């Protein structure tokens, strides 16, 4: 029968379950939405940044520079077209370029892209082989961790590729690929690719001995000299090629994307304001209904400050409940979003990470609850016990 203020506050909340549930639900929803957005934004940015990793420029066919970046750095968009290797080499061999990684693709296996490239592509992302070895001869492939898992490819497996990047109907049944290596999970774009040499990609489309023009889709460039950003585009101004800067394009993307997030954030803040009102009304209401009880507790030795504290505690408990439930809501939300994003873009979102900004969010939500209780609670401080008891 031990009593405590927490127990009394808890009993009071539990005695009006509907109003308590409404307050908690509103706050949870507001907190959940804001933290969901923080998580989504953070994790997308994180995924973007991880894949840019020291890629200063991307050389590819003319078209939308954003598309060029999305297609070749993240492998989520269709490529802008192909460029002739001979043309590209002018840039690749330029003294301002520290590293150049060619990418050639156009086929898929179960919708995972088969990319012809150099071993330096693997080194660039610091990926390790889980088993097997890197490719050496045409039609040897190394598969990313995700591809191996989802498509069920193992060392020594053979398969045919399909033409295009999304379609699985047009199968090149004359050329057999062999898995010679599987990569460890690197949490980069490599996880979702099948890698081979560039000759393989040309070989797939080489029909009955006729020579295919040596083309690549894009070249990832790392600069040696900052002037490269200014000089190289001039070098190719009269070709069908362009150079795009991933940092700038991604910034532009997240800014546009940020606009949508901003709207959602406003809605979430409105919901939090509503939950403030709800807690305010809930405490105010219970204060009116319990005026006599509060006076009674004063006659039994409760100080005005003690009662004020107990009302704050009720607001605090409500908001704490909201914050905890909100965290659960946002985790469920991000998990749902993750499956959606993974399905569409093949990107992992890690649902369980807690951001520093979320602690701030939790603290401010609890502050909202305390404030919502503190204002009506002032009436408890000023309660005229004698009159309240006489009026009853």
């Amino acid at each position, binding site marked *: 029968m031990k009593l405590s203020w927490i127990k009394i506050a808890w009993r009071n909340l*539990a005695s009006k379950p509907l109003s308590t549930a409404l307050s908690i639900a509103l706050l949870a929803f507001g907190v959940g939405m804001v933290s969901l957005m923080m998580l989504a934004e953070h994790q997308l940015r994180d995924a973007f940044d991880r894949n840019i990793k020291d890629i200063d420029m991307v050389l590819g066919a003319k078209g939308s520079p954003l598309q060029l970046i999305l297609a070749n750095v993240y492998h989520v968009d269709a490529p802008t077209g192909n460029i002739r290797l001979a043309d590209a080499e002018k840039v690749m061999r330029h003294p301002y370029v520290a590293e150049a990684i060619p990418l050639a693709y156009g086929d898929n296996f179960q919708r995972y892209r088969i990319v012809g490239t150099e071993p330096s592509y693997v080194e660039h992302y610091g990926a390790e082989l889980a088993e097997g070895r890197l490719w050496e001869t045409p039609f040897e492939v190394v598969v990313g961790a995700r591809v191996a898992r989802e498509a069920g490819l193992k060392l020594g497996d053979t398969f045919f590729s399909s033409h295009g990047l999304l379609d699985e109907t047009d199968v090149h049944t004359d050329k057999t690929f062999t898995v010679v290596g599987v990569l460890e999970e690197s949490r980069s774009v490599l996880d979702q690719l099948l890698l081979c040499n560039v000759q393989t990609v040309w070989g797939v489309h080489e029909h009955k001995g006729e020579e295919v023009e040596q083309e690549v889709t894009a070249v990832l460039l790392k600069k040696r000299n900052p002037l490269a950003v200014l000089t190289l585009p001039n070098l190719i101004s009269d070709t069908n090629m362009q150079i795009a800067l991933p940092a700038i394009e991604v910034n532009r993307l997240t800014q546009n994307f940020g606009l949508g997030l901003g709207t959602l954030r406003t809605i979430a803040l409105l919901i939090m304001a509503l939950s403030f009102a709800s807690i305010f009304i809930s405490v105010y209401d219970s204060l009116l209904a319990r005026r006599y009880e509060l006076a009674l507790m004063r006659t039994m030795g409760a100080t005005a400050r003690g009662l004020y504290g107990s009302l704050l505690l009720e607001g605090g408990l409500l908001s704490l409940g909201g914050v905890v439930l909100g965290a659960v809501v946002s985790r469920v939300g991000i998990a749902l979003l993750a499956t959606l994003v993974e399905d569409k873009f093949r990107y992992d979102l890690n649902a369980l990470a807690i951001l520093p900004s979320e602690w701030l969010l939790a603290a401010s939500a609890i502050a909202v609850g305390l404030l919502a209780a503190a204002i009506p609670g002032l009436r408890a401080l000023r309660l005229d016990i004698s009159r309240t008891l006489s009026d009853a």
Partner: protein
Amino acid sequence: MRSPVPKINNLRLMVMPRIYDLRTFGGMIATENLTFQYAPETPMLRFPDVVCAAGERLLLLGDSGCGKTTLLHLMSGLLRPATGTVTVAGTALDGLTGRELDRFRGAEVGIVFQRAHFVQSLTVLQNLALPGFLSGKGTEGGEERARAMLERLGIGEKADKRPRDLSIGEQQRAGIARALIHSPSVLLADEPTSALDDRSTERVIALLESEADRVGAALVVVTHDTRLKDRYANRVTLNPVSEWA
């Protein structure tokens, strides 16, 4: 915390023209020259001095509107008098700060209201734990003592019920239990019988007396109930406010 027995009390002890045994003084409640005004324009209320020792009983009689409840609130420190002093268990209430007064009242004064009120979200038993918890005094024996008390008052099986699930009579008895559970020095009863029939009145007043005796508290009954007017020799009748001028 200042000393619970301010020096001035010793002085008052000497000038107090009462015949009560000094051994029981600790449980006493006494008022002296009390006046009170609700607002500047309203008449100044003057109250006769009253005194009630530990284990003794006092009747405060008077019709509605003669300031009975005001006097009761002054005696329990819920209202501060304009002039005069209330002494409870050897402590002058005017010497206490608001906080101290709250604590002191919680620990030393039990109040039985005309209609019992409870913290509705707590069980009867938890309501009985409130005085000990809120006054910081604690309740000796805790749950056992509370259950025994409810048992004695014939509502033992209601201990874990919500107050609203009790009948009015049961609530009244639970109210008495709550007023006395923490062994206060003074038990103030505000119209405890006015809503009750003759038989219940007798039962309730007998309960008040026996339970007050059990903890050695001074029992002050404030009432306009004529059935009680001859019950105690120690009685003070208040005059209607309109006749005070």
